[in-house]
């Protein structure tokens, strides 16, 4: 019974924890511009994150080594340092975007300028990282993030033309008046939003934080294979809402408030309140994950003690990095750089950086020195190879597309 409960809890937090500011922005903007024609990318992204999160969780469980340990062991000190600088920069950008997202969510509820909330949010994020136990933190924000299910409820209550939505999704075509480069650029953004590197840093480090053993491997699989796809459905619900309300009116969303319009119109005040709570929880939870991931990646590269399973005094450099990252992220948002713009860049750069993280995971998941009999199956390897090739193409194409489309504008 207790086991069942913990499995259920894990799945629920995986759903609630899937969506962050990147998913909210990418899916709303894409739905508003391209309808459901890029829905397939969300599916590709969800399958990809399932594949690599499961592998990273399995490696961490069996060998006790989290992702950046593997990066350093397999790429060597120099190449791994380049990787660290790139990954840290992107995770830091995402952290800043999430802090901005929390402040924007509060702004929507209070109509007080979001910049005023940024310092408060930063202190709150740091306090949770400093004091709150790992599983409590994960459960609270994962469960609160479930409030985003309201986007799916809204969609269902609207009685949309399901056939039309599905048709748009299964017959992808670039809408009239839009160019192929922009369409592909947004495809990359969606992929980056679904597969952000920090998610695997956090997931694998979390397995160590929670002291998973081989007996937990089933739980790992269930969390990932059930939780993430359901979380992906919430992304698609945001996209469908934008397709129904924003696309026909030519609205080009540039604010978090516009992502809330479909749910507000479908469900009214209660729905809106629940959605804003969901935005808050999703971005706050992701701010915690990215803040911790900044610490995880640096500590794992240099071999410092890391983790919330020891007292802060026993992991001083890890906590120092996390603290400085949160403070610097808040400062970046306080420059009045638009958090939505920061988000857009962070997800696209995430997509470009994915092979850096995914190649070492894929290789080590095949190494019996680490994995014993828990190495990848042939099927996992076949799928992993397809993704590695795909991500390689994405990494090469991203920067040219960014220049060509002036970052999708």
């Amino acid at each position, binding site marked *: 019974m207790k086991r069942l409960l913990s499995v259920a809890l894990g799945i629920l937090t995986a759903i609630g924890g899937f969506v962050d500011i990147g998913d909210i922005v990418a899916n709303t903007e894409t739905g508003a511009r391209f309808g459901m024609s890029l829905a397939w990318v969300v599916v590709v992204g969800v399958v990809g994150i399932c594949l690599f999160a499961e592998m990273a969780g399995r490696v961490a469980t069996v060998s006790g080594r989290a992702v950046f340990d593997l990066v350093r*062991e397999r790429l060597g000190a120099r190449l791994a340092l380049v990787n660290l600088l790139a990954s840290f920069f992107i995770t830091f950008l995402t952290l800043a975007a999430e802090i901005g997202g929390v402040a924007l969510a509060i702004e929507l509820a209070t109509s007080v300028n979001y910049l005023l909330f940024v310092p408060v949010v930063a202190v709150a994020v740091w306090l949770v990282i400093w004091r709150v136990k790992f599983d409590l933190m994960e459960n609270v924000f994962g469960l609160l993030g479930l409030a985003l299910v309201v986007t799916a409820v809204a969609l269902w209550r609207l009685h949309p033309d399901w056939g039309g939505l599905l048709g748009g999704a299964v017959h992808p075509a670039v809408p009239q008046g839009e160019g192929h480069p922009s369409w592909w650029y947004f495809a990359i953004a969606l992929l980056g939003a679904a597969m952000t590197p920090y998610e695997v840093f956090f997931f694998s480090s979390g397995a160590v934080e929670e002291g998973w053993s081989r007996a937990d491997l089933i739980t790992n699989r269930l969390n990932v294979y059930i939780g993430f796809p359901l979380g992906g459905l919430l992304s698609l619900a945001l996209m469908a809402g934008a397709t129904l309300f924003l696309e026909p009116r030519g609205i080009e969303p540039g604010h978090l408030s516009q992502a809330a319009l479909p749910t507000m119109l479908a469900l009214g005040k209660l729905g809106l309140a629940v959605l804003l709570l969901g935005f808050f929880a999703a971005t706050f939870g992701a701010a915690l994950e990215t803040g911790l991931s900044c610490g995880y990646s640096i500590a794992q590269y240099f071999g410092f003690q890391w983790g919330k399973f020891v007292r802060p005094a026993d992991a001083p450099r890890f906590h120092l990095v996390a603290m400085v990252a949160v403070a610097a992220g808040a400062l970046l948002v306080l420059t009045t750089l638009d958090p939505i713009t920061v988000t857009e860049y962070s997800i696209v750069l995430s997509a470009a950086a994915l092979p850096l993280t995914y190649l070492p995971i894929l*290789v080590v998941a095949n190494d019996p*020195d680490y994995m014993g009999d828990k*190495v*990848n199956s042939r099927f996992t*390897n076949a799928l992993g*190879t397809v993704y590695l090739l795909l991500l390689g193409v994405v990494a090469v194409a991203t920067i040219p597309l960014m220049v060509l489309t002036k970052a999708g504008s």
Partner: protein
Amino acid sequence: MRLTDLLGAEVVDQAGRSAGKVHDVRLVQDGPLVGGFGAALRVDGLIVGRRAVGARLGYERRTMGGPLLVKLAAGWLRHDGRYVAWDRVRAIEPDRIHISGSADDLPRPAAPQ
């Protein structure tokens, strides 16, 4: 001496011809006893080759699984690996190691476990 002084150094034979760079150093645990670890690790020889990319992925071990594509790529990048037993090392200079004999008769490294 540090391991880093060997890794990446160019290996040159008596005729002055290069055999490639040191990719790895093979250690065997059969030295004198040290503390709790048992026998000390002794340098057995150098693994030398022209290309270094992919050397760290570990695919030269027979036990390594797939994925096939990565395995093939790593194998292709390392196909010219040679082994220099330590007793052939004559002198160690910065970034350069002189060996006795000719670079042509270096054996392929035996696959480790």
